[in-house]
């Protein structure tokens, strides 16, 4: 049987949203596989070909040996053997290859391949992917608040980012991310989750990752126990920790010593409460040195230069404090 293209009219998307809203905040993919597959497929479909598409830069045209244009990628829903999924095609090429380790694992091999082994399209079935992940000891999950912000709203293409990314800071999503990771769970809501975290998932690295996530979770939980409503000023260091932990949960960065060194120094600063969690201030600027810290964590061999890590983090702390004004209300 060949996959059948499925069109979901607005009414059915609305129904999907209602069903998603009825789920608990975190639900296992396998507890409602059909609904989860539809929601994940919709999340991926919405991103394909847009600025939020993380797949595109790893999809190459075999003949030109260049990545296909992001705008050339189109997605549509398909059903096959009672599985819901999607097919991604490029108007640039029907001879595609994938250039990220693990990417081939999340694309149906028989349905997607040409006779010469290149790919005419990418058939993606979230339910099979959840099965692949579970055999690596990792559970894929739906996270309602994240999905409501991304899949079912919040994206303005002119801004080039999801509202959820910005509001991650205030929502303190690092706590939820660390909580999921320490439990061996990965959210599966869009192209970032698929390509950055699930493609190439390997149980051999998850024990260490879960240990790191547990440590992050505990330290941040202790830190925020001081206040019921932390200020944005106090949320920047934890947000930075979240981005480093996100990298560490990506197969290409599993166990990266550079990331671990930067993460450790950030955790020390949080434990020492150099910026108190109950600091009642307004933040006027996002610290430019945030970028430097993320770059440092990705620099090969940076763990051998702890003074550079400390300097970058101290600089960011000073930036935060100098941009934090006492509110006299």
């Amino acid at each position, binding site marked *: 049987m060949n996959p059948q293209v499925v069109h979901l009219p607005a009414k059915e998307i609305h129904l999907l949203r209602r069903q998603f809203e009825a789920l608990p905040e975190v639900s296992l993919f396998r507890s409602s596989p059909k609904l989860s597959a539809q929601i994940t497929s919709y999340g991926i479909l919405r991103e394909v070909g847009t600025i939020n598409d993380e797949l595109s830069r790893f999809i190459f045209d075999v003949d030109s040996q260049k990545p296909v244009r992001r705008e050339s990628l189109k997605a549509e829903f398909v059903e096959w053997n009672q599985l819901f999924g999607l097919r991604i095609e490029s108007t640039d090429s029907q001879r595609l290859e994938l250039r990220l380790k693990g990417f081939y694992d999340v694309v149906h091999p028989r349905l997607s391949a040409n006779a010469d082994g290149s790919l005419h399209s990418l058939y993606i079935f979230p339910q099979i992917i959840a099965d692949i992940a579970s055999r690596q000891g990792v559970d894929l999950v739906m996270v309602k608040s994240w999905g409501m912000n991304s899949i079912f709203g919040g994206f303005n293409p002119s801004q080039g980012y999801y509202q959820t990314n910005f509001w991650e800071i205030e929502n303190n999503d690092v706590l939820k991310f660390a909580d999921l990771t320490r439990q061996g769970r990965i959210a599966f809501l869009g192209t970032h989750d698929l390509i950055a975290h699930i493609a190439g998932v390997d149980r051999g690295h998850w024990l260490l990752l879960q240990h790191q996530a547990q440590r992050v979770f505990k330290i941040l939980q202790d830190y925020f126990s001081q206040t019921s409503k932390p200020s944005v000023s106090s949320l920047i260091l934890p947000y930075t920790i979240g981005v480093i932990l996100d990298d560490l949960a990506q197969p290409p960065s599993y166990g990266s010593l550079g990331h671990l060194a930067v993460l450790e120094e950030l955790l020390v600063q949080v434990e020492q409460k150099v910026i108190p969690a109950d600091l009642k201030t*307004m933040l006027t600027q*996002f610290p430019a040195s945030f970028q430097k810290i*993320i770059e440092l964590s990705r620099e090969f061999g940076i763990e051998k230069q702890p003074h550079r890590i400390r300097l970058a983090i101290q600089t960011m702390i000073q930036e935060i404090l100098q941009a934090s004004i006492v509110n006299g209300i």
Partner: protein
Amino acid sequence: MKNTSSHLLLGAVGLLATNSPLISNQATATAISEVKMTAINVASLKSIESTWLKVPMACKARGINADATSLIQKEASQDIQAIYASYEA
């Protein structure tokens, strides 16, 4: 609630224009309710938005830490292929 937040937001933004004092690394003892803190955070997020957008890596959705590379193995592993095969009718 919305109006209160808006007024607080305007007040907080107003403080920017009047060169409010910078703080050291000590929290002030000012008692601010959770509602007020929410309004202050709304003002903070509004205030930092333009500088946040200048930091490419602040957006996690574009944050995969990997470059495209040529792969030797251009197909799924045998184990993975077996999983796909198990879903064939």
